[in-house]
Every structure is written in structure tokens, then in C-alpha cells.
């Protein structure tokens, strides 16, 4: 895929993939239309085969339980022995009986057990159980042979429960981990002193330089409809304040290459 500029941001992501990465948390912050999701998509394509990756769109994720499930499905439940033990232990502790459930498969069973654990619970109880499970889950990830990159998009639309979980338990574990790498994008991003020392914040201000758009126009199979393409593009960029979403929308109406 083609992406206009954001070289500095892409470089920060490359650094995140390094074995000796000192800042495992990378935050992309920008207004709507500044290209956060495109940048995230680009980052995903840069991750080598031998590195695990999990992408989470926070618009369709209502609680941290779904993130555990998604990670298990993506990386295989075989990697999460400790987590599974802890889920079983908590269910036993709270006398929750999930026997007799006919759904087959490890994933389904964990889904049922997790749901039982969080049904009809107060926010405090949920937070407490999330803490216990997050520690076990992170411990399993730390035992993986290769690093694991977790990409979270649309942070500002996450529920308060997820935001609390990300800002606290989750990023706290990432700060102490050798294997976990995290990228979070949003109009707003997490803030905390707890893990600030191992976090890189990159803001997205749009792409104002006309030249940066030329490869994108070419990749979209379009031509600039003007005698002097750079001047025309510069006018568009200036009028649209470098906002990538609006500029791409204008470009897709340019004539196609014959």
C-alpha cells in the first residue's frame, strides 16, 4: 500500500520491532482524517512473518475479555496455558459451574468460562478479575519464542472499562515485558506516569507537502488534472490543511491514467 510521508512515524514503528527496543509502547495521536488508520495498516504490513501480531479495532470491542479471546484465537490457545489455568481457578474460586456446556473446542470453552466470570459483576469486581487474568495472559506472552505486536486502533471510541484496562493493567504489563510491543492510535491516547518512560508519542498533523502525494496518486492510478501538477496539488494541500482523508477523497476524483 502507498502512504504519504509520516516517515518519522514509520521509523518509530521500525524501532519498535527491533530486538533491543527500549520503548515498547508507541502512540499515534491525530485528529479525524489525519491518516491514523492508514498508518496502522501500513505498520501491519511491515511486521515480519516471525513476529506475532494481533490487531484490535476498539470500536467493535466492548470489553477486555474480547481482547483475550482474540489473542488466543490469533496466536493459538496452546500458548496460553497459564491464562487458561487462571480462568479455571477463578471460576472455581467463585463457585461458577460451566459444566454441561455442549460447545466444543478450547476457544469456546474459554469463551463460556470468561463470560461466566464477568456476568453480573460490579466494575470493581471486574477490574480485580481483569488484573489477575491480565498478569497470567502477559506471563504467557512473555514465554513466546518471538515478540508479539499488539495494534489498537480508534482508542478514543473504547469504552471506559477498556480504557482503564489499557491505561492500567495492560500497559503496566507491557512496560515490564521483553516480548510485548504495542501501538495505539486515536484522537486521544492513554496517559500515565507509570509507563511513561517506555513510551514514544508521535502526533499526526497531516501531510502538507505536495510532492509527498505524487506516489500516492500514481498508486491510485490517477493523474493530476493540471498543467503544473505540483502547484495544483500544493493548492489542494493548502486548502485542505494537509488532511489526508480529504486530499485522498479529492484525488480519487482525478482522471484515471489511460
Amino acid at each position, binding site marked *: 500500500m502507498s502512504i504519504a510521508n509520516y516517515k518519522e512515524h514509520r521509523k518509530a514503528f521500525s524501532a519498535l520491532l527491533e530486538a533491543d527496543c527500549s520503548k515498547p509502547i508507541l502512540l499515534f495521536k491525530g485528529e479525524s482524517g489525519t491518516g491514523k488508520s492508514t498508518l496502522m495498516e501500513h505498520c501491519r504490513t511491515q511486521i515480519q512473518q516471525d513476529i506475532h501480531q494481533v490487531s484490535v479495532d476498539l470500536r467493535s470491542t466492548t470489553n477486555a475479555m474480547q481482547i483475550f479471546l482474540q489473542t488466543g484465537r490469533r496466536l493459538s490457545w496452546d500458548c496460553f496455558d497459564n491464562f487458561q489455568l487462571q480462568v479455571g481457578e477463578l471460576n472455581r474460586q467463585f463457585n461458577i459451574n460451566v459444566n454441561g456446556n455442549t460447545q466444543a473446542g478450547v476457544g469456546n470453552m474459554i469463551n463460556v468460562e470468561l463470560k461466566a466470570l464477568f456476568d453480573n459483576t460490579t466494575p470493581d469486581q471486574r477490574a480485580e478479575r481483569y488484573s489477575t487474568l491480565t498478569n497470567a495472559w502477559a506471563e504467557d506472552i512473555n514465554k513466546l519464542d518471538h515478540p508479539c505486536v499488539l495494534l489498537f486502533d480508534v482508542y478514543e471510541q473504547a469504552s471506559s472499562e477498556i480504557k482503564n484496562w489499557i491505561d492500567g493493567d495492560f500497559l503496566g504489563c507491557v512496560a515490564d515485558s521483553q516480548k510485548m510491543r504495542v501501538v495505539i492510535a486515536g484522537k486521544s491516547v492513554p496517559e500515565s506516569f507509570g509507563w511513561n518512560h517506555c513510551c514514544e508519542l508521535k502526533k499526526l498533523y497531516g501531510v502538507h507537502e505536495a510532492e509527498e502525494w505524487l506516489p500516492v496518486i500514481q498508486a491510485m492510478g490517477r493523474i493530476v488534472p493540471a498543467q503544473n501538477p505540483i502547484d495544483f496539488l500544493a493548492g489542494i494541500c493548502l486548502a485542505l490543511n494537509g488532511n489526508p482523508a480529504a486530499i485522498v*477523497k479529492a484525488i480519487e476524483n482525478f482522471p484515471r491514467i489511460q
Partner: protein
Amino acid sequence: MNDKYQDFLSELQNANESERDWLVMEFSLQNLSEVLRQAVLAAAIPHWFDHAYLNAVLGFPLKDEDFSALTELSFVEVFPERGFNVHERSRNLLLDYLWKNNKARYQKLSKQASAFCKKQDQTIAAWRVESIYHGLLANHTTAKDSFIEQGLNWLNRFQHDSLEHLTQVVLAPVNSGKLSGEVAAWAAFLQAQIDILYSRYSSARDFLQLTLKQKNNKFLVSSCIKSLGDIHSHLAEYDQARHCYQQAQSIFRQNKSRSGEAECIRALASIHRILSEYSLARDCYQQALTIFQQELDPWGEANCIQGLGEMHGFLGEYSQAQDCFQQALIINRQIRNFLGTASCTQYLGDVSKNLAEYDQAQDYYQQALTIYQQIKDPLDEANCIQGLGDVSRNLAEYDQAQDYYQQALAIHQQIKDRLGEANCLGCLSVLHGAQQKIELAAITLDQAAQLYEEINNKNSKSFCIGNLGVLYLHQKQFGPALLAFNQAIEIFPHVNFYQNRSELYMQIEDYPAAQADIKQAELIGAYSAYTLLIKAEYALWQQQALQAVEFSQQALAERPADGNVRAFFALTLLADGQAQLARAEMEQALTAIYQKHEFDYLLDALNKLTRIYGHLAEVDVLRGQILNRYQTR
């Protein structure tokens, strides 16, 4: 080159910032076919779509190639696991355009979207929210009620993630002026509840102020004022909180919402309790209890009875407190309220501890602790462990007490409960005092006092200072002790401080000052057993032995398991010439006295008795009993 592009650029350059986004969108729409243009507008209606959903919104089937062309547009993006969505910024532009230029079409598309969503699984929160959202924008007659009912249902069932999703989705059209009136007010009210839950008080207050603009719905207005009271209470703004609760209570009453009224009275009770206005709190709990019982609300009933028990406990009325906790415990068990069951059991432990019934107290604390650990309630777990520490300390099992306190302190620190941490430090300091580590005790008390200061809990700080006074008193450092009691009384005139200061005055033989403090303690009226005991002591040193016997006997009736009270009763009997009975009572008392300073006090009192009454028969026998017990304990 084509003029239309130059014209487009010129238009963009001449437009103001707010118009430019729409000009780009309009330019895109102009370059699309009519069908695709219709599809783009329809696709902006839902928060996400797939081909079937979009067909339903459009009201006709869109050809595969048109759907494919739509999803390739730059402002249409993939929505994981659900299909696609129009990018937020473009969606807002399209919705505003449609609302402004063709509201009827907007409502028709919303109606079609709503009909489709209703056919989906409504137990899935995402579909339920989407159904309600489109119903509201289609102006369905039942949509408002469905929204309110669903919102309250999720709020009451702790499904806060679903509730927050609903309020966020509804607040977007409220903010852009597409929804208003009662729907807007309820959306703001429900969002405020979420904000309160997550301690975002400033945002909650703003939403509640918005809600209050909707004056027609009195239930909403009163609930809103009650919530404002809750915020003030969280922020320790107690006068404002009280004002809000009273205002809300009045509106609930006018509108005959009995349970709303009871909730306000119960909230007022909590404020009185925080401010140590125990009698007022007790009256409020009683009032609220009557209403909850009439309304057949066992949860409210159990809470109020428990509250009454706590107030009796604070006032030293242990027998009534015990009755209340037993009653509340039965109801909590019936309604399977595990937290309530555990806290009533813990309070029964507190009462037993205060009555010096230590075996019983340990039993209650262990029962409560098991439940707290099962329901994962670390705060109360820590408080229970602290209670066990108090019992061990009173039994002079200091190593065990230290273990318990350290365990509790670690939990309080882990969950960042500063009040619990301060309370725990306070307990540790008393323990250090009992172990004669006076310097360490004073340092620990100072740490606790600083914490109380930081969290603005002045009453508890005064108890810290009062405990420091007791520590000095046990060391016979009367000057610093007096200073501490005076300081504590200045912050919070609690009956215990007057009782302790009168004890100090009696030790330095300033009997008029002691008498004045006894009168003050009587006036306050709480902790009557201790007041009776110091009255007995005063009478004893005034050579009114018979009166001293009567007072100490009354005190003992209230605290039969308290070895210290029984021992003092024995001293008064001795002074009254009932030597044999005194000996028997002292024998029994000494089985329930454990700490060094308690033995020291008794030996001092025997000496003083000899000094005032002359050498009494059996004094040496009693001294021997005390020393023997002290050495063999």
C-alpha cells in the same frame, strides 16, 4: 486540462474552513452515478453495514458491482467482523447534509434501518443499541421509552459497557441537534451515571446540568439533583451534598416517588455519618427504613438496618447494634446479598471485640473474611484482617497482631486505599505503644495523622492525636498527654477524649477538672459504660465507695466480658468493705486482662486506694492476685 478541476480548486480556496470538507464531498458525489450517490447517503445512516443491511436501509437491492464500487471509495473503510462503515468525518458531513436538506428522507432511511436491526438478535448489545438509535432518529413513537427502559436496565444490572455504548451513540445526534428534549436529557443523565462510576466528576456535573434543562420530567429532575448530591459527597463537599439531597427528597415526595425519597434520606444519613452526627444519621436511617419496609424493598431495608447498627456501634450502644446486625444479616442471607452478609458479620465481630468477647469476635471476622475472599473484595478483606489484628492486640498476642496489621496494610497499599492505610497505621501505632515502643508508636501515629490530613479526614486525625494522648498517659507523661487531648477535642469533641482527659485529671488529682469533663461526657451521651466507669472512679477517689460500687456495677452490666471493668468493680467493693466479694470478682476479672498497661493501672489504683482509704483488709491479697496473673500470663 479540464476546467472543472480548476473551478473546484478555486472554490476550495475561496471557501471558509467549515465549507471545504463539504465541497470535497460534494465533488465526490457529483462524480458518482445516481445509484451510487443514493447508496453513499444510505451507507452513512448506520454505524456499519454489509450488503444485506445496506439493501434494507436503501429499500431496494443494490447490485454487487455497485456495492463493490461503494466499498472501494476512499471514505468507506472496513469495520472488523461486521463489514464496512463510512469514515467518521465523511459520515458526519453526509448526515448533516441529509438532515438539513431532506429530513423526511433521513427519517425514512432510519426507519428502514431500524426495521432491519429489530430483526437481528436483540440480546447482542450492538444490535440492540443500533435498533434504539435508528428508532429515535426515525421518530418512532415507542423509541423514547425503549431507550429509557434499556438504559436504566443496563445501569441497574451493572452492564456499564453496553450502557456507555448506548449513551455515546445517542449523544452524537444530540450534540448535532438531531435529537433533543427528553431523549437528550436522559442520554445526558445516563452518561453522567457512567462518569460518576469512573470518577469523572466534572464531566458528570456538566451532563447533569444539561439534564436539568429538561424541567418537565420531575422524576428525572429529582434523580439528577440526587446525583449532583452524590458528586458533592464524593468530593467531600458535604454542605452542598446535603442541600442537593434535601432538594431531591422534596421533589420525590411531591411526586409521590417513595423509593426515591427513601434513597435521598439514606444518602443524608451517610452524610451525617461522615460528619460524625450519629444521632441525626440514626434518625435518617430510621425514616428511610420505614419507607423501604412500606415499599417492600428488602435491599433498602437491610441497608438501613445495617446503617442503624453502625450508628448504635459508633455511640457505644452495643446491644442495640448487635440486634440490628443480626436482623440485617437474616435479610441479606434471604436476598443472597453476599456483600451485605459479609459486612453484617464483620460488624458483629466489631461489636464482640468492643465488648471484649474476643473468641466470638475472631469467629465472626473469620466468617466474614471467607466471604470477602470469595467475592474478591480486597478492601473489606483488609478491614477484616485488621479487626483480627485488634483482637490479637487486645489479647496481648503482639506478634500475631503485627502479622495481621502488616497483611492488611499491604492490601490497602496495593489497592491504593489511603483511608484504610491510615487506619492501619493507627492500629500499628497502638500496638507499638502496647509493646512499649513509644518512639516508634509516636512516629507511626504521626504518619497516620499526615495521611488523614492529606485525604482531609479531620475526625480520624483527631483520633490519632487522642491515641497519642493515651500513649503518653500510659507512660505517665501528663503534660504531653493533656496537650494531645486538648488538641483532639479542638478538632472533634468526641466523648472518648473527654473520658480520657477526665482520667488524666484524676491521675494528677485535679478533681474539679475531671468532674467537668465527666459532665461533658454525660452531655454527649455516648459510650455510657465508659462514662459510668469514670464516674465510679471519681466517686471512689472522693471516698464515696457505695456510689462507686453502684456505678461500676452498672458499667459491668453493659460490658460483662470486660476484665478491666470487672477489676475496677472489685476495687470499689474492696473500698466498700466487701473484701471477699472483691477477691472473687478480681479472680474472675484477671482471666480477661491481658496487657501490661492494664495491670500497671490496677496496681497503681490499689496503691491510691490504700493512700486514700488507709490499709484495707485484703489489699495485699488482691495485689498478689494481680502480680501472680501478670507473671503467669
